[in-house]
């Protein structure tokens, strides 16, 4: 039996059941008969005002894996809630991108929208509904799927955050091999599981002579760190940073920025010879329980206001170039971003898979 077909049939049956259930308890705001789950643009359903009305009638939105201090999502969520009066349920804040897609279970508690890494976006595209926001043209071609199944939202560069009161200033990645860093260097996630962890290893690889296609130098580097006793296998979090257990942490620069709350002496270093960029992507659940609210959320995120909120969180919004030209960018927030001299490199889906396969096979032996 072909499992893919089985899943498709099961999904179809599930979708029929859900639509039937939704149909029986349809929006009490009687007039609109637009099925927003089929709309690929706001105009298709009658324009922004119709979308807003339909979303308000739905009254709820379910999001997933959005910690409040991740790229300022806390403020984004509360702004959206107060602007439209739509109540947001935030599920599984510590979930991985794969968890987000795994949560699509066809019930009314499933998430409506997701914010996932590239690998998951590519592998789960069949579960998304295509949609193009008003500012679709501002998103570069390489940063979106052609029909609108997924589209980049914000990104950042892999950096090394460190507590300058505990370790000397870092000027290059190889500094970390020094004796001043004994038992201090950690990752924010396991590279065999976490997108962030993997990109940390990729960055170390590029900084040590490797490339996006060759992550072995990165694994070797961490092996060296382990031999010198500088590597701490603990998962770095806000708490471990504040407690001083992980004073040097490989993580996205916008996440590092939020650690400044607990540690005033926290600094971020992005190596100029290894600027690894990573973008996350938005997507809408094909069986979203609240399709109009989901689409309104996307419109909000890609509006100038939404993009600037991400910028405030230290992330680089995908429309940054277009907004800077148009002058709608939040200049203070843009200036506060860590300075980066050099050309960023962004691993493609294939490069990430290749790196991931290598890491899966070699990481444990290298650092255990």
């Amino acid at each position, binding site marked *: 039996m072909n499992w893919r077909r089985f899943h498709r049939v099961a999904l179809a049956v*599930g979708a029929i059941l859900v639509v039937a*259930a939704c149909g029986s308890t349809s929006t009490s705001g009687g007039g609109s008969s637009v099925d927003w789950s089929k709309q690929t643009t706001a105009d298709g359903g009658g324009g922004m005002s119709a979308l807003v009305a339909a979303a308000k009638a739905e009254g709820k939105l379910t999001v997933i894996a959005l910690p409040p201090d991740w790229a300022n999502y806390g403020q984004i969520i509360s702004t959206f809630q107060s602007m439209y009066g739509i109540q947001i349920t935030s599920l599984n*804040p510590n979930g991985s991108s794969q*968890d987000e897609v795994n949560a699509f279970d066809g019930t*009314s508690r499933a998430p409506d929208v997701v914010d996932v890494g590239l690998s998951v976006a590519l592998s789960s595209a069949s579960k998304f509904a295509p949609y193009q926001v008003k500012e679709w043209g501002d998103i570069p071609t390489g940063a979106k799927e052609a029909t609108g199944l997924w589209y980049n939202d914000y990104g950042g560069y892999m950096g090394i955050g460190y507590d300058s009161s505990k370790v000397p200033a870092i000027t290059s990645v190889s500094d970390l091999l020094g004796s001043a860093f004994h038992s201090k260097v950690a990752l924010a996630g396991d590279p065999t599981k976490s997108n962030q962890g993997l990109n940390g290893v990729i960055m170390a690889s590029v900084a040590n002579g490797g490339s996006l296609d060759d992550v072995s130098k990165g694994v070797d580097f961490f092996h060296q760190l382990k031999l010198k006793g500088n590597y701490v296998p603990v998962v770095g979090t806000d*708490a471990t940073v504040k407690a001083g257990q992980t004073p040097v942490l490989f993580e996205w620069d916008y996440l590092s920025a939020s650690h400044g*709350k607990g540690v005033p002496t926290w600094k971020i270093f992005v190596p100029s010879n290894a600027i690894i960029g990573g973008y996350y992507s938005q997507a809408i659940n094909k069986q979203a329980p609240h399709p109009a609210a989901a689409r309104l959320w996307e419109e909000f995120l890609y509006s100038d206001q939404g993009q600037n909120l991400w910028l405030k969180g230290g992330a680089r919004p995908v429309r940054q170039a277009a907004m800077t030209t148009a002058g709608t960018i939040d200049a203070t927030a843009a200036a506060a971003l860590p300075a980066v001299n050099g050309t960023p490199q962004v691993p493609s889906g294939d490069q990430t898979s290749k790196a991931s396969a290598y890491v899966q096979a070699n990481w444990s032996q290298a650092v255990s």
Partner: protein
Amino acid sequence: MIRSRRRKLQIFRYTVFLVAALFFLIPMFASVEFSTRGTGIGAPRTLDSWKLIGSTPELFAAISASLELAVITSVMMLVLVLPTMVWVRLRLPTLNRVVEFICLMPLTVPAIALVVGIKPIYVWISLNFTDSILALAFGYLILVLPYAYRTLDAGLGAIDLKTLTEAARSLGAGWGTVMLRVVVPNIPTAILNASLLSVALVLGEYTFANLMNYENLQVAVAYESLVDPGTSVAISVAALGFAFVLLMVLSVVGNLRATPVGNIGGGMP
């Protein structure tokens, strides 16, 4: 009891308690110490992290949901598991190993794997019956099975179940009376401990609720933890304290039951 033996026993007890207290309480103390740290070097102690607990309104709904789940699960456990164990011991001893293994199975795989199997069933329940978080009780009872079985088994093994039930039956007691007035009062510790474990498990359970998109106490705690590093530790310690108080209340209430038939426990040499 001979005095020297009594004294040796007391020394043993106090040593054990002292070592246990150090081992278990010091990490808790370390956590609390961290949660009261201020920001920056040399900053004064502060309760700010603690004050941030309860900053989300969902926390209270989550607490009450978890409490209801704890009660439902414990009651279901006692009603379903205990009579079955008694019945198997008395009437179907060949099934003993089967029941034992089944009750151990939920603990053999990580919860994330178990969730994958149980999720389709919950989706079916959600679509056909109810969306309520209380449906989680069925899944929680499965998680509780290993602990409940082992505790009740230790208790049932310590009494002469056959003789007691035969005596009661020969005096004309129905099975209901046998269960409620003969078996239960003779294994008070086992029942209490099984209930304690069930309540503690439900209050501490995170994976099932999280992966099935429900919001119980631990899910709400996880969300609030992200507010501030100190708060993440503070709220977890607070949740532990809350569970502890609850279990103390439960053990006091549980001990108000009828005195056991036959000489059990107390005055143990």
